[in-house]
């Protein structure tokens, strides 16, 4: 196997070859497969394609898309040189792609190319180009090769009508449809769509469209709005529906399709073919044929480049016409990667000063707030966490003192109060039972906005339900936990958890507070730490215990001192642990604080350019019967980096 890095690219036809066995012939018949392969064979050598399929079986034609990320654009010039444009529309596209590949265009992180109706051999090639503007794109980030004066006027009109927090995510140029421009809006909240459409002069039934839109937001992580201008705003608008997690860790996939079927937007057979689509291939796996061309490329790459291929349902799209009638499409993506980490290349460390880090972290967290005002992270069988994660992120955001952050935190507060479970507490998410840890975080968050918040006070009796004769549990004896297997032993989840006790001790009052502090003193290990149940490391549990003890004890208190000394001696690896170590040492004496300051400075150097930190909140999800943390427990990190970033922001704020 050679070690020379040679990158001629990979044929996108290989994506289709591996995709076909996953799709039934009734979904993509043999003739359509051949037509799509013929189109794919003419595309740039970037192995990332998607199929656009109707969900209701009224139209058998499937459109082909190709994703070209900025880090793949070096593959474009050779291909464009060998494939002269076949139409005026393609000539415009080639001019843009050439400029983009040479770095002369604004920094667009990715481009999607779309070929409509590949089955029509007589049609003049007229691809669509969809450009991601990127989170940091300025107002002038427009593709000069594609843009006309009319486009610029349209974009400026849209920008002026956008509510706070709403951004243009994509610009689309449909070259087969004259000067048509698509503007894709990200972050529109349900109550904002109607005034936005009115401001833009949309000719359709605004109330019906807004109701439709609002009904999808809770079922998705992101819902974008696609508006077409020619230059007038067209009567049909698009609503794109995204879920971050794979079907195995996101129950809302089923909810989304339930609703699609109930509205007659999706046939049962298409649902069966698409709903759970999520596959990963390795070249050595049995039962599939890895493309020959891809094997050659693998042999030519350094050994650290491990190839793999992923197929998944990317997203769904609704088209709403002026009368409120809807139709739906699905997008199935098939992409080759050189390693699992290549899917989401992490932005480079930023090198900002500490004060700038806070602002960048805040910007990242505000951008990631969902359109239902909650934040979501982690992926377990019950889906992503929204209630627990929103409380922690909301706490960090609320503590910043920034006006836009305060508005975002207030919206999250309202959403969390609306999601409180049966008048009790809050849980991992709405599908999980309420628990003491999530509820304690929500109480912290509510008090950060208003120290006298009555809802926080009202939630304290729920916390008290978790006090055991010799411990404090995540789930109370009276809390119903539903499992698929009704006979499941859940004693582990109802036993003492020091990490939860430490968290609750920091927010409890009165006798519960006294009991929890006594419990912490009684359960501290000789070396000074508290063993976590839900976390890979003990840093967070010990930091929360230090915080709780320091509310009433001085730094000379033996238990507190032992904990602080243990904390000072830890060599932490992740930004998450680093953040909580720094937060804890702030409660110590001069020597502890002297050890904490360099940690904050290190944290600042590890911030990524998008304002986040590498996810390091390694949550465990033990078997419910498991009483003790096991060394071989499966780790579930905060893959969206929100929990770690919120922790880092809390640390920066603590040391401000």
């Amino acid at each position, binding site marked *: 196997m050679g070690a020379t890095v040679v990158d001629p*690219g990979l044929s996108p036809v*290989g994506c289709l070859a591996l995709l076909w066995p996953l799709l039934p012939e009734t979904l993509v018949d043999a003739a359509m497969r051949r037509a799509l*392969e013929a189109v794919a064979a003419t595309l740039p*050598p970037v192995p990332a394609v998607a199929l656009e399929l109707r969900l209701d079986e009224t139209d058998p034609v499937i459109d082909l898309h190709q994703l070209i990320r900025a880090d793949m654009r070096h593959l474009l010039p050779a291909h464009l040189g060998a494939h002269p444009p076949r139409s005026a529309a393609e000539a415009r596209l080639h001019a843009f792609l050439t400029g983009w590949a040479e770095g002369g265009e604004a920094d667009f992180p990715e481009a999607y190319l779309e070929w409509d109706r590949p089955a029509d051999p007589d049609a003049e090639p007229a691809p669509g180009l969809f450009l991601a503007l990127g989170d940091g794109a300025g107002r002038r980030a427009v593709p000069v090769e594609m843009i006309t004066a009319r486009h610029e006027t349209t974009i400026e009109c849209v920008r002026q009508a956008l509510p706070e927090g709403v951004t243009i995510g994509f610009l689309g140029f449909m070259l087969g449809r004259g000067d048509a421009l698509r503007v894709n809006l990200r972050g529109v909240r349900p109550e904002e769509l109607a005034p936005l459409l009115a401001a833009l002069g949309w000719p359709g039934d605004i109330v019906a469209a807004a109701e439709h839109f609002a009904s999808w937001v809770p079922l998705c992580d992101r819902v974008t709005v696609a508006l077409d201008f020619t230059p007038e705003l067209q009567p049909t608008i698009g609503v794109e529906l995204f879920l971050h997690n794979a079907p195995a860790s996101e129950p809302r996939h089923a909810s989304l399709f339930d609703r699609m079927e109930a509205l007659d937007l999706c046939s049962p057979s298409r649902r069966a073919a698409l709903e759970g689509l999520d596959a990963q291939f390795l070249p050595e796996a049995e039962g599939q044929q890895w493309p020959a061309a891809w094997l050659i490329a693998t042999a*030519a790459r350094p050994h650290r480049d*491990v190839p793999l291929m992923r197929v998944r349902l990317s997203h769904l799209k609704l088209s709403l016409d002026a009368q409120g009638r809807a139709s739906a499409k699905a997008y199935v993506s098939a992409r080759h990667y050189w390693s699992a980490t290549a899917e989401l290349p992490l932005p480079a460390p930023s090198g900002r000063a500490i004060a700038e880090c806070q602002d960048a972290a805040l910007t990242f967290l505000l951008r990631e707030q969902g359109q239902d005002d909650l934040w979501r992270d982690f992926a377990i069988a019950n889906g992503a966490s929204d209630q627990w994660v929103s409380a922690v992120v909301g706490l960090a955001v609320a503590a910043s003192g920034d006006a836009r952050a305060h508005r975002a935190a207030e919206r999250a507060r309202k959403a969390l109060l609306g999601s409180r479970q049966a008048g009790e507490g809050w849980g991992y998410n709405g599908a999980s039972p309420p628990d003491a840890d999530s509820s304690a975080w929500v109480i912290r968050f509510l008090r950060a906005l208003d120290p006298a918040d009555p809802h926080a006070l009202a939630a304290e009796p729920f916390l008290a339900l978790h006090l055991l004769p010799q411990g404090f549990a995540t789930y109370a004896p009276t809390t119903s936990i539903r499992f698929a297997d009704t006979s499941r032993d859940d004693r582990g989840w109802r036993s003492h958890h020091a990490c939860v006790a430490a968290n609750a001790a920091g927010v409890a009052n009165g006798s519960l507070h006294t009991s929890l502090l006594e419990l912490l003193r009684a359960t501290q290990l000789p070396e000074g730490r508290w063993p976590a149940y839900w976390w890979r490391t003990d840093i967070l549990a010990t930091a929360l215990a230090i915080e709780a003890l320091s509310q009433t004890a001085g730094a000379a208190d033996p238990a507190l001192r032992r904990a602080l000394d243990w904390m000072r001696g830890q060599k932490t690896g992740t930004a998450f642990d680093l953040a909580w170590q720094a937060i804890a040492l702030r409660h110590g004496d001069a020597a502890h604080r002297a050890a904490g300051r360099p940690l904050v400075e290190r944290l600042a150097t590890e911030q990524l350019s998008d304002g986040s930190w590498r996810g390091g909140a390694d949550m465990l999800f033990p078997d419910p019967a498991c009483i003790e943390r096991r060394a071989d427990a499966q780790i579930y990190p905060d893959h969206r980096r929100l929990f770690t970033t919120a922790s880092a922001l809390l640390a920066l704020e603590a040391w401000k």
Partner: protein
Amino acid sequence: MSVSPAALQAAMAFLLAARPEDAIGLPAVIDYPALAARAIARGFDTDAAAIEQAFRTLMRMRNAQHPR
């Protein structure tokens, strides 16, 4: 499953003979029977199934030490 040395040699010969630009131009999937016919003509004692298995083994060996 064990892999025959002849099939491994044929698979290696295929990879070593390829040029970087072949990474684009080859058919989407390997035509194992055709490759086996060529290998047999060159004196390898093998067949299509053995060569397919040999390719998987080579990839497994290559990728075994690296995280996904």
